[in-house]
């Protein structure tokens, strides 16, 4: 597809930086891997530098760290209940991983690992498997109740139960597609409008440039929003696993 040198999709190309091979499987260190490493380094730096002072009265960076901590903690408490507390570190990591991958992707010439379906699907699949295991571990076979809405007439159940089951198994797909599609569409659009600016030149290029600026702001908003959406949906799935009765 990306035949031309300036295709809007060229930015999603995976490039090998350090070729690695393990048992015939290609595990090369690529630009995607590089930006994942940069993302976790940046997240770690922000959160540890901010907390370096451990001040009783927080400074700016410490406030950022504390607010994000409380933000995720409240999100879990409100959406998954108090039983969601043991999964706080995982969801905190998930949020910061996605947030930093998304935000760092906004830097020109960088790479957005979350714009690849396999990455988002990998995370969504882990959430899906984890939630399913937690559901069965906490409720045993009672977890099946999740598929049977309470207070519904018996004949309707024949329709509703298959729908519930399908919607449950579609979760990892919808979760991963949402993040992947948002990231990819946003970056493609930025590239397309960037191309307009160049091709329209100095005379008419200002209109798409102005739009590009606005779009960049929107994309930064989407980068944060999608990290939030991914995390809060994981919380809701966790809630289903902990309290399967509707």
């Amino acid at each position: 597809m990306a035949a031309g040198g300036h295709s809007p999709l060229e930015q999603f190309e995976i490039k090998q930086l350090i070729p690695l091979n393990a048992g015939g499987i290609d595990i090369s260190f690529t630009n995607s891997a590089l930006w994942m490493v940069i993302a976790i380094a940046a997240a770690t730096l922000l959160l540890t530098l901010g907390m370096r002072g451990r001040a009783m009265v927080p400074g700016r960076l410490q406030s950022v760290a504390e607010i994000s901590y409380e933000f995720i903690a409240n999100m879990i408490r409100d959406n998954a209940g108090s039983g969601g507390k043991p999964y706080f570190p995982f969801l905190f990591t998930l949020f910061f991983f996605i947030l930093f991958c998304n935000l760092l992707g906004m830097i020109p010439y960088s790479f957005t690992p979350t714009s690849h379906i396999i990455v988002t699907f990998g995370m969504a699949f882990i959430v899906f498997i984890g939630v399913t295991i937690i559901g069965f571990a906490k409720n045993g076979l009672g977890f099946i109740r999740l598929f049977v809405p309470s207070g519904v007439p018996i004949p309707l159940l024949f329709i509703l139960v298959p729908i519930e089951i399908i919607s449950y198994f579609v979760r990892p797909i919808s979760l991963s597609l949402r993040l992947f599609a948002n990231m990819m569409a946003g970056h493609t659009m930025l590239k397309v409008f960037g191309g307009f600016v160049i091709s329209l030149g100095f005379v008419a290029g200002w209109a798409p440039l102005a739009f590009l600026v606005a779009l960049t702001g929107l994309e930064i908003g989407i980068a944060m929003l999608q990290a939030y959406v991914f995390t809060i949906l994981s919380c809701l799935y966790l809630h289903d696993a902990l309290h399967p009765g509707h």
Partner: protein
Amino acid sequence: MPQLAAETFASQLIWLAITFVVLYLIMSRVVIPRIGGILEDREARIRGDLDKAEELKADADEAMAEYESRLASARTSANEIIGEMKATMAAETEKRRQEIDAELSKRQAEAETKIAEQRDSALESLDEVATRATAALVERLSGSADQDRVAKAVASVGEGR
């Protein structure tokens, strides 16, 4: 579309797993305990300060109550002293008054007896003067006067008084 190039999937998944696990370990071992610790410390500190403030307020209330009670007891003892003083002063005044009364009545009685004595003596001398005057009158008129009869006559006049 580069996203569908399946030959890159393995590497992406491997690096996703590595970076995610590393980030998870950093977050769960370092970052989260640190932030949680500071938040707990702060909460404990605030709670401690509030407790201390409560304690100090209780102390202040206690001191205030003690002050009030002391003030009240001081007031009552002052009232007692005033009452006592009033009573002693009243008693003293009464005693003094009685003394003065007694003195006065004694003096009055003395004065009365004196007056009575002087009157009596004045009356006695009056009889004598009257007798002598009468005798002198009788002698001038009659040439001679019987002293005894004159005295009797004067006495009889005096009795009619």
